[in-house]
């Protein structure tokens, strides 16, 4: 038999990609932002990251053992990336609070959101974001949305690391003087979740993922673009809104938008598969973020927007099913008069 003639059905060309390769490249893309978070928040950030990742891996091993799946799957990096992402979206907090907030969130993300729905590739929601939302409802006092730790300033600023000193995030401030664009972009003196403040680091990681074709450029572009357009167009709520309320640059550079747009909304499991579906998904996320920021009770809505759009992802996939090559949609029979 001629060995060079392969007779079998498609696929004939295979990607060399595997789950560990993808996961570790996502982790690499997140590393600049993680490094910046350690610079900004010191040992508290290290502890939060360590607790979150360690709990995620431990829960993954326990769930795999319970499901009688090969334990080697715990090494594929998916649980570690979930733990890393969860730590990045949690607010920085002292170790006395972070060890159980991060541990409970991580365990919930892996055990309930991922393994109860069938494990890797079967979850409906992004596990890290669902863990974040769970922790926020479970510990409303510890995961406060109005009081945030002050980060260390860049380049010669005074180091003000301490539990007692807190301030509002850029999206919650009522002060007439608000941060400059450059400070927002670099995260200089900006409070927020652990990994969301330095947009430059997130942008570097995101561009690496786009160039290496791990994520679709459409999602971040349309997500951020929708937020940009709508914050400029929609009227702000109430009388005398803060001066930044209708400033699209300010909105795009504040909060968790970059982290969500590059690393959360692009999750391959929980976002649509077709290009059109991804555009609808990203625009829907952007719309929800602006609605929550402008008219909702919370200052920030990136987590909720992605969770809600995750929920309707199967519907979007159904609407955007591409035409099968060679087929045509059924046409109504010609009417004979």
């Amino acid at each position, binding site marked *: 038999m001629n060995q060079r003639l392969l007779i079998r059905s498609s696929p004939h060309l295979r990607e060399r990609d595997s789950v560990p390769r993808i996961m570790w490249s996502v982790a690499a893309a997140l590393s600049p932002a993680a490094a910046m978070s350690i610079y900004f928040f010191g040992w508290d950030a290290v502890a939060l990251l360590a607790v979150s990742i360690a709990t995620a891996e431990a829960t993954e091993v326990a769930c795999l053992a319970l499901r009688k799946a090969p334990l080697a799957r715990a090494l594929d990096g998916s649980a570690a990336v979930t733990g890393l992402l969860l730590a990045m979206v949690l607010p920085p907090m002292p170790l*006395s609070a972070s060890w*159980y907030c991060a541990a*409970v969130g991580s365990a919930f993300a892996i055990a*309930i959101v991922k393994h*109860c729905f069938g494990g890797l590739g079967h979850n409906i929601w992004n596990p890290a974001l669902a863990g974040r939302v*769970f922790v926020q*409802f*479970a*510990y*409303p006092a*510890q995961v406060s949305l109005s009081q945030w730790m002050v980060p260390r300033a860049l380049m010669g600023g005074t180091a003000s690391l301490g539990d007692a000193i807190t301030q509002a995030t850029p999206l919650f401030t009522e002060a007439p003087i608000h941060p400059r664009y450059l400070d927002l972009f670099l995260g200089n003196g900006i409070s927020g979740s652990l990994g969301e403040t330095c947009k430059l680091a997130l942008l570097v990681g995101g561009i690496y993922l786009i160039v290496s074709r791990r994520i679709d450029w459409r999602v971040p572009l349309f997500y951020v673009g929708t937020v940009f357009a709508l914050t400029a167009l929609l009227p702000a709520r109430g009388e005398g809104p803060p001066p930044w309320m209708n400033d699209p640059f300010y909105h795009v550079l504040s909060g968790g938008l970059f982290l969500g747009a590059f690393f959360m909304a692009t999750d391959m499991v929980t976002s649509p598969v077709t290009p059109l579906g991804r555009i609808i998904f990203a625009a829907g996320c952007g719309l929800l973020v602006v609605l929550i920021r402008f008219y909702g009770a919370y200052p920030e809505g990136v987590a909720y927007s992605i969770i809600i759009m995750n929920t309707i992802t199967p519907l979007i996939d159904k609407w955007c099913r591409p035409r099968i090559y060679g087929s045509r949609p059924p046409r109504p029979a010609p009417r004979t008069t």
Partner: protein
Amino acid sequence: MGFAIVSGFEILLRLCALNASPQTMPERSHFQEFSKGIVSQNAVFVLVVGICPTLAVTTGLKSAVAMGVGVIAVLTCSNVIISLLRNVIPREVRIPCFIVVIASFVTMIEITFKAYLPPGINAALGIFLPLIVVNCSILHRAESFAYKNDVGRSLLDGLGTGVGFALAICLVATVREALGNGTVWGYSWLPTSWPVEYVPASILIQAPGAFLVLGLLLAGFNWLRRTRERP
């Protein structure tokens, strides 16, 4: 309108009857008549009926015990009365007759609870005490058991089903109160020193926590049953 409600109940009962195994097949001993409602046909964890009070009043063990006592009393009494009247109640209007009997006992329980229970517990039970009238598990037992069996068996069946329901909601309530509020029966069980401190996750005593805890317990019992059937 009344007709619509009654036919709604009909559909509900048909569904319940589909879930339950046939009652008349082999002769059960009196003890089995009592015990089947606790384990093999547990209202909450096996038949999944009576979920509304299970979700609503399980924020604390005290209110769950009060609800459990109420359900046991109503279920046992209405089973006995319906069994006594089973040859008198015309088949065509049996559901309204059951409801009248059940509602009478619920009213008695409600008045008694208002007189003797501490006000906090009574407030926690709220609307869910009068709503025992439409608790599926009570109608289910009336329709599928008490209407077809003698008084002694109906009494045991009512007691067993009621105890099974009460145990189930007490279990849900214990988990939710212990993990969500850090207390059991109002007493704190948490050590206060740092390394083993457990900080209560308040989501568990809110509405989403009820669904989470019930779902996880259901999954746990299904898993137990499956491993027992297939050793």
